[in-house]
């Protein structure tokens, strides 16, 4: 289900190093507070963003994150988009399986962050990079 929220300003961060992942967490936290998410929802969203930004760095070979405060008339929310021009994901079902990793991780990044947010979608193909979009709304 796609909502067409009215956006305010979009913040963009490059993801090229471990320190950028920390910066993404901080930016998402700030916008989540602006959106008046509860503390638990903030924590879930920031945790998901940390997982996805790390994937952008480690598997995507670096990329960028866009974070924006959104509103649909009734509620405010946060949308974050993680994109890279890396190798893409060939078998998305497998990649979304709890515990599956092609590298050194715990295999919880994609599957777990999907559970932590309200809306989650992935756009990827072998050779065509990866784009993950997440949204969480205030209650």
């Amino acid at each position, binding site marked *: 289900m796609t909502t067409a929220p009215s956006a305010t300003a979009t913040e963009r961060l490059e993801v090229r190093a471990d320190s950028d992942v920390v910066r993404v967490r901080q930016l998402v936290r700030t916008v989540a507070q602006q959106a008046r998410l509860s503390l638990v929802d903030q*924590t879930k969203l920031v945790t998901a963003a940390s997982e996805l930004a790390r994937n952008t760095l480690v598997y995507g070979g670096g990329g960028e994150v866009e974070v924006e405060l959104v509103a649909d008339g009734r509620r405010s929310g946060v949308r974050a988009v993680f994109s890279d021009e890396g190798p893409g994901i060939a078998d998305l079902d497998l990649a979304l399986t709890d515990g599956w990793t092609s590298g050194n991780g715990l295999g919880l990044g994609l599957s777990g962050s999907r559970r*932590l947010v309200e809306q989650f979608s992935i756009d990827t193909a072998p050779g065509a990079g990866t784009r993950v979009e997440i949204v969480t709304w205030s209650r």
Partner: protein
Amino acid sequence: MSDSVPILKIGSTLLVSIQVDLQDDTALQLQEDLAERITRTGARGVVIDISGLEIVDSFIGRMLASVAAISRVLDAQTVVVGMRPAVAITMVELGLSLGGVRTALDVERGLAMLAPAHESAESVLLAAAAERESR
């Protein structure tokens, strides 16, 4: 590489208080530093205070589990203390269980859990306070 996390020694226990938003390379460095300090000092316990952490994602969660496993093979016990409720809720939903990791409410209880019989919790805490002052 960001700043490394300081490790205090209190009696026969090492105390690590993570006060910063931990980046991945710093977490790995902490793991190595702790292994080295346990061996060098013969510490029997490690208390990791994560009350300063706003999130524990799968990377940090794995680091905590690894520290517990590493210290176990080096004959030391690890206790993770101070986890915020929102962090606990999120970790479970993420799918992290921290299976092999002992936890306690706060530093005081963590130290008491690890202190050998002859080092009473009180004396350990006095030592801790003294150590903090002297920094």
